[in-house]
């Protein structure tokens, strides 16, 4: 097949096949990315924008709402992502045991939350965590608490609800990746370790986790990007009267702030674009750090 004529038609056909996608990506991806970068240097309201240089960037550092959104997002990231990854790893490890009874049932049950839409499960959580709702009723019923917990009214508990909600929705999703990866690991490694008297927890820490490192890295990056873009939950669980991020902005995230800046208040597209680039930069930095932490040390 080293015929130069054939190679040329291959190349021509290849470009033809790729072209529709490239044109669309140029229009709806590359162009908006560049436009938004340009916009982040513009100030003004509505559609009348003028060049403001670094005005938006210096505004970021003095904007208490932005700093609040940034720190909320950081809390979600630092608490939720490790919690979920560890839970998913443990479940995958337990459910990988072929001698476990009802394995299929447990796997399906833990995975099931992934089939819900983010908005639908959010409204379920909102009603479950109502002040007199089913969660408080249960906790009072088993005498774990004597007063109802103000889940959605307290800044602290509202964050806890969001973290629990995301963990509920995504743990099974991550678990599936680990289960698939575990099936590719040669079981004889485990047998050898077991015969050598290595206890189960040590096999998990010193064998499973290092062997799964590439998948853990992948899921951590995906989860980080997802959490940095957190929107649906804080717009629907911790919201009242159509305003998300309640109470008193305690669950306001960067994405929600961008939405508020652009579409809830008098639109401020330039500044909103600057905030969106904060997410781009954070995704870049965190992905780099995660790659660096997971690199092969030789």
């Amino acid at each position: 097949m080293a015929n130069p004529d054939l190679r040329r038609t291959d190349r021509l056909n290849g470009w033809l096949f790729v072209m529709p996608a490239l044109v669309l990506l140029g229009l709806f991806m590359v162009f908006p990315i560049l436009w938004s970068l340009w916009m982040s240097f513009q100030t003004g309201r509505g559609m009348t924008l003028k060049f403001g240089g670094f005005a938006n960037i210096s505004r970021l550092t003095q904007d208490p709402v932005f700093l609040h959104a940034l720190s909320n997002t950081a809390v979600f990231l630092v608490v939720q992502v490790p919690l979920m990854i560890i839970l998913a790893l443990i479940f995958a490890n337990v459910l990988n045991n072929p001698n476990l009874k009802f394995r299929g049932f447990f796997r399906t049950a833990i995975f099931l939350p992934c089939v819900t839409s983010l908005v639908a499960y959010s409204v379920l959580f909102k009603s479950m965590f109502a002040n007199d709702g089913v969660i408080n009723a249960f906790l009072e019923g088993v005498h774990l608490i004597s007063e109802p917990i103000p889940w959605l009214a307290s800044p602290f508990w509202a964050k806890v609800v969001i973290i629990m909600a995301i963990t509920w929705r995504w743990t099974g999703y991550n678990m599936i990746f680990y289960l698939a990866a575990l099936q590719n690991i040669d079981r004889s490694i485990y047998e050898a370790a077991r015969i050598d008297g290595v206890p189960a927890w040590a096999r998990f820490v010193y064998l499973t986790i290092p062997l799964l490192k590439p998948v853990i890295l992948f899921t951590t990056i995906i989860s980080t990007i997802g959490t940095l873009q957190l929107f649906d939950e804080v717009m629907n669980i911790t919201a009242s009267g159509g305003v998300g991020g309640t109470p008193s902005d305690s669950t306001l995230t960067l994405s929600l702030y961008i939405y508020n800046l652009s579409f809830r208040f008098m639109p401020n597209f330039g500044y909103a674009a600057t905030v969106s680039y904060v997410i781009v930069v954070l995704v870049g930095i965190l992905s780099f750090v995660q790659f660096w932490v997971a690199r092969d040390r030789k």
Partner: protein
Amino acid sequence: MTANPLALLGRTLTYLALSLAAFISIFPFYWMIVGTTNTSADIIKGKSGFGSALFTNVANFFAQVDVARVFWNSAYIAVVGTVLTLAVSSLAGYGFEILRSKTRERIFAALLLMLSVPFAALMIPLFMMMAKLGLINTHAAIILPAIASIFIIFYFRQATKAFPAELRDAAKIDGLKEWQIFLYVYLPVMRPTYAAATIIIFMANWNNYLWPLIVLQTNEQKTITLVVSSLTSAYYPDYGVVMVAAVLATLPTIIIFFALQRRFVAGLLGAVK
């Protein structure tokens, strides 16, 4: 293994922990179904047994929402979006594999880099573009930006690597043109890949929230996801109605999940293969 009391304790604890996790995972589904039969006041008071308000809730839902219209909007966006995304993105995935040139790798690397650009950074320019094109409040504005999906292109390119080159060579010797090979050889052989990709794209379209929230402004255009959200965002939401809407929003994806369980999981895993 058998007579060791410590191992027995460990196993009991494992089953207890798994049962608890399964219970927590399933409870919200039960809550949703029970909720459709209860009044809003009962739901907020945490009533977890079945009630008798199902017909009232369904009737109220149909009175407040043009259900057929909303369901049609969601289905239209999801189905048309899925078909177009499959066509354009699988064509590109295949094209990238047959395209043996250095530029290809550069373009592909750039695409992968763009995969990590969050939607928040795109939505403002996209909104302004749609405003200029007069597409605000149309379904086209929802479908168009999603057709060329980097993730799905990547998925198809990875899968195409397993497509036997001999098949393509044989088809060429038989005198088939490239588009014929794609249509009559590649497409049937790659059916499992298409099935998995269909699930990913359909779910993403059906559940899409932020972009439709921005673009779709009148009730006539709204999707079921937007309706669930707006029913809940009232100061005093009628949770009985909300539960009925949530069931309608979740049902299609649950049906797809149980019908195609294995493909479904394969679809989610597609990215790492």
